[in-house]
């Protein structure tokens, strides 16, 4: 249990945490603005991964160009899903939206299996990203650095968008009170659509990272990030974006450190441990770490 070993685990936890955080942000944005638990959010990650693979193989374009393409496709997917499934039932009780998101998730997964077959595919990123760097005892690859840096960059940009721009102000107003926002002349449909677009765009980028880091994708890969982003968002305080970021990193680190620091036999209990810890956090902080006692608009 050398310090190098622990440092390595922490780095692995941060990498995983960055991806969970990116997906959790989109989840919390969508929840914040329309009080919707969107379980189809994870499948946007899957779509992002496959679009990345498609762009890499067909165009062979450099990564930044592919990243923009993935961001746009994720945003487009988010807008389409919002328009088709969630807008028609906007006034309905929250659990109805949650069920609708399950329906959308089932559709996306099965459409994926029908069109792309269920066979997992390898995900070839250019070699320069696979090169391994050693800093003392800690080793990580270029792709890991890219993941962490771009995650932090995207989070910063997002916080700027939400807190410094006109659109961000409109989003926060709509999130707090839909009717009064309309009375202020805020076009709430356009505002909600842009929240879905930004959230889904980030999830698609997380799909690119997920494929890049693990090197293998399949139509069902969206299930795990979808579930983990829901858990991370709740840990951080659902609806709060800084909460989602914090929740993502806490969950990423907890998963890796639990398996890393305890004797091997316990690694099979990882998910049980993570959820047990989560329940304890919720009992201590019923609204999550950074959550506010947001009143629940029906």
């Amino acid at each position, binding site marked *: 249990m050398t310090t190098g070993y622990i440092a390595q685990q922490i780095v692995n936890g941060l990498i995983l945490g960055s991806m969970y955080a990116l997906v959790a942000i989109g989840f919390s944005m969508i929840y914040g603005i329309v009080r919707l638990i969107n379980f189809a959010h994870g499948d946007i990650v899957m779509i992002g991964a496959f679009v990345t693979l498609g762009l890499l193989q067909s165009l062979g374009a450099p990564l930044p160009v592919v990243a923009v393409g993935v961001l746009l496709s994720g945003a487009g997917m988010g807008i389409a899903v919002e328009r088709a499934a969630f807008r028609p039932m906007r006034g309905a009780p929250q659990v109805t939206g949650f069920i609708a998101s399950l329906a959308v998730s089932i559709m996306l997964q099965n459409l994926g299996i029908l069109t792309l077959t269920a066979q997992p595919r390898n995900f070839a990123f250019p070699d320069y990203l696979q090169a391994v760097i050693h800093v003392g005892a800690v080793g990580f690859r270029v792709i890991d650095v890219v993941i962490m840096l771009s995650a932090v960059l995207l989070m910063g940009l997002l916080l700027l968008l939400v807190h410094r721009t006109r659109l961000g*102000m409109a989003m926060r*107003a709509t999130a*707090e009170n839909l*009717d*009064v926002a309309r*009375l202020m*002349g*805020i*076009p709430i449909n356009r505002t909600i659509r842009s929240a879905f677009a930004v959230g889904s765009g980030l999830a698609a980028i997380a799909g690119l990272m997920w494929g890049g880091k693990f090197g293998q994708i399949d139509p069902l890969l969206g299930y795990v990030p979808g579930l983990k982003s829901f858990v991370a968002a709740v840990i951080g305080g659902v609806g709060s974006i800084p909460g989602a970021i914090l929740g993502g990193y806490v969950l990423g680190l907890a998963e890796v450190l639990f398996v890393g620091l305890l004797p091997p036999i316990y690694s099979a209990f990882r998910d049980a441990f993570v959820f047990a810890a989560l329940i304890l956090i919720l009992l201590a902080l019923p609204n999550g770490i950074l959550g*506010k006692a947001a009143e629940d608009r029906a």
Partner: protein
Amino acid sequence: MLKVADVHVYRGRTHVLKGVSLEVGRGDIVALIGANGAGKTTLLRTLSGLLRPRRGAIRFQPRADGPEVDLTRLAAEDIVGLGISHCPEGRGVFARLSVRENLLIGAYRRRDRGGIEEDYQRVRAIFPILEERAGQAAGSLSGGEQEMLAIGRALMSRPALLILDEPSLGLGPMVVARLFGVLAEINRQGVTLLLVEQNAVAALNLARRGYVLETGRMVLSGPSRQLLEDPNVQRAYLGGTA
């Protein structure tokens, strides 16, 4: 400026407004008084486009020379663009946004950056307290201050008609007096006011004309002076001894 003709509104199966008609002249101050549940807020939500009337028309003419528009066709967010601004019931300030952001949101539809800044200064002149608390979250303000913020925010869209939904709610008499003084000043600067109030005395003293709404029907209307002396109004709303 605003003509409401025979409007019927239903909430679910209940028939809340049963053929309500109302007129607000340009530059006028009109008061609408009625007990709780008379349908005041439903009428305002219909005017602002949040509710759709099943029958009847609402015609609005922002400028004397300008065209007349039927509001029932428009969405709430577009009605604001025409020059109607709404101070919702319970103030509806955005608690987690700063005072400054709340005011800026009032001008969301406007693109004239210069004009917005100018109005921003003007509102802070009218309500100096807002200047002091500009960076603070709106939620931390007192009731009176939140009401001022709500009015200030409504002014930011440079409205032709300002609709206020029970501004005096939960405020002490001193604060109400000062608030109504400011409203009079705003009216003198050319803004038409439609004031919905339970506090009938204050409302009718400020307004030139008034309407009385009871269980979804307009039962009385006329100049304020006449309504103040009307026995049923006194008995019902002014606590006078019949």
